[in-house]
């Protein structure tokens, strides 16, 4: 069985064209997404806790609400609630205007607090500057206190995450999915067309060993794919992976198992290797978009966002991102792993039922 697995890995590696495309296609996308500046500024949410409640403080709130990249939330929240929302990432910016804000001329005013998370540094810089200038304007003529004392910035340090990190996990999912489905479907249908499967049947090799050898070899290829995509993403394009790398491999391989089963199923339906390849693409490409490999699927119309949740790629990507971006542990993603496990059993049962040797 080991001999069979090793022979299969050799064959996969020697099929230069297929091996090249298996790695090149996701890498190409890594490069595309790495080069496009997807780290755009975008707007952030803002809440103002106005403890002063004076004409000046209200004017300041209004002027902040008018800033183009800030969306004022209506609340109402207490200061503690608002701070928790920032901590948890539900609120991007919190401004607290203290009671002493409207101090008369000459007296030292209490400082305005600006609170935000460390991610999205470019926008933070912009917002910080805007708030400082607005506060200075609101207090113009009232104080000689230096600008730096008017606003205190409280920055909640969080891991540095950006869209590219999100997409990188999508690319891992895409690469593993496409290669697992298409490679198995094409290989098995080639073997059937050339009667290699039949030739194996006249040996005493038990059938399950043949399947094991194929699956083990493809899992090895998938592991190499994941490693290369992560290496290029991190070292060439500066992506950040925060969670446990071992969990990422584990999730990717569990996902690969589902897609290998789908490949076996397609190989049973396809009359030729070319048809198998077409079918594989027809399944992989729509799934890539619907499972949110690159873009959020929340904006899909009708029942499609729910349907997207039912695809096997969706829990795989969720779990990968939970681990890679939010430093989740394996037990944090057990629902996704459970769904993938069910998918594995379900697709294996169908594959076992429809698989043909001749």
């Amino acid at each position, binding site marked *: 069985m080991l*001999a*069979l697995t090793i*022979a299969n890995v*050799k*064959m*996969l590696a*020697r*099929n230069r064209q297929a091996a090249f495309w298996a790695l090149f296609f996701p890498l190409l996308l890594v490069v595309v997404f790495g080069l496009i500046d997807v780290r755009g500024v975008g707007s952030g949410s803002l809440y103002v806790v106005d403890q002063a409640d004076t004409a000046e403080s209200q004017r300041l709130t209004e002027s902040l609400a008018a800033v183009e990249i800030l969306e004022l939330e209506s609340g109402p929240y207490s200061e503690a609630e608002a701070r928790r929302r920032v901590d948890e990432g539900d609120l991007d910016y919190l401004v607290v205007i203290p009671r002493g804000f409207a101090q008369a001329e000459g007296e030292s005013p209490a400082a305005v607090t600006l609170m935000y998370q460390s991610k999205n540094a470019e926008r933070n810089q912009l917002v910080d500057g805007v708030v400082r200038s607005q506060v200075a304007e609101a207090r113009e003529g009232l104080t000689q206190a230096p600008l730096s004392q008017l606003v205190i910035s409280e920055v909640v340090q969080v891991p540095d995450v950006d869209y590219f990190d999100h997409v990188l996990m999508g690319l891992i999912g895409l690469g593993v999915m496409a290669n697992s489905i298409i490679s198995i479907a094409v290989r098995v249908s080639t073997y059937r067309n*050339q*009667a*290699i499967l*039949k*030739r*194996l*049947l*006249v*040996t*005493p*090799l*038990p059938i399950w060993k043949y399947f094991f050898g194929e699956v083990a070899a493809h899992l090895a290829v998938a592991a190499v794919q994941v490693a290369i995509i992560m290496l290029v993403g991190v070292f060439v394009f500066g992506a950040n992976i925060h969670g446990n790398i071992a969990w990422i491999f584990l999730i990717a391989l569990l996902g690969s198992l589902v897609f290998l089963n789908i490949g076996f199923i397609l190989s049973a339906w396809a009359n030729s290797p070319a048809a198998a390849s077409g079918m594989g693409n027809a399944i992989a490409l729509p799934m890539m978009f619907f499972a949110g490999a690159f873009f959020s699927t929340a904006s899909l119309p009708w029942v499609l966002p729910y349907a997207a949740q039912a695809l096997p790629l969706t829990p795989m990507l969720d779990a990968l991102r939970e681990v890679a971006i939010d430093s989740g542990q394996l037990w944090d993603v057990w629902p996704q792993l459970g769904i993938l496990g069910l998918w594995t059993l379900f697709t294996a049962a169908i594959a076992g039922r429809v698989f043909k040797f*001749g």
Partner: protein
Amino acid sequence: MLNAVMEEAVQVDGLVKRFGPVTAVDGISFAVKRGEIFGILGPNGAGKTTTLEIIEGLQKPDQGKVTVLGMDILAKPAQVKARIGVQLQSSAYHDYLSLKEILALFGSFYPQRLDPNDLLEQVGLEDRADSRVNQLSGGQKQRFTVAASLVNSPELVILDEPTTGLDPQARRNLWELVRSIHGRGVTVVLTTHYMEEAAELCDRLAIMDRGRLVAVDAPGKLVSQLQATYTVKLVVASPLTDAQLALLNGDGEVVHLTEKNSYLLRLRNTPKALGAMLDELARSDISLDHLEVTPVTLEDVFLELTGNELRD
């Protein structure tokens, strides 16, 4: 009793296989003795491959029993497969492995295996050990598939049309290979639709047509059954009358061929009958386009037994 069983490498009893409305194998029985080269001769579609695939355990018969090396193929398929070697009619091998690697891979499926280099040497491909299958010529490819059927040092080798599509030289090389395998005490079962191959190679021969066995015997005996030693083929300008034919043929028999004005005469007692026939031809006003005298071959046996020509 045990000895009697063990003398048969293959025992087939009342085998029937249907594919939908088509009966591919229609109640055949035969036995292959240990140590012989047994041929199954018949045109395409006669049911040869289906019969072999049932013996190999690839297909299940609708009726009948097959015993291979003393074991029921349906009851002990894995044990049978471990001790036989099979060359399928149109099976390819992996594109991305060398010959040596393919043989090692297939060897790993068996409890006992031969060294790939030794196997390649046996079939004269030792210098192609690191080549891929698609770099081989047709003859080399066939020899390699024979080598692949020998990886487990089998007691019985089954070859399905091993020489189909080969040029005459490659065919002769393959015959030599089959003889050398046979020379080591291995029982060989092969199918062919070439008469001369069956006559040249096989100790015994089963003639198969439309799912039935029409004869099983040594090639020489099948030929001598015809009680004729020469066949004369006549092509004439206008049809012969029965009286004319009777004069020409003496006590032989006449077979009309499908071609127009073409007759096959089987002569007993040649050369006397041949002389009489030629005299008769010279005396008559028959205008002769073509005359051919050949020794009786399996071709004539097949024609006699099935009423069809073997050539397809």
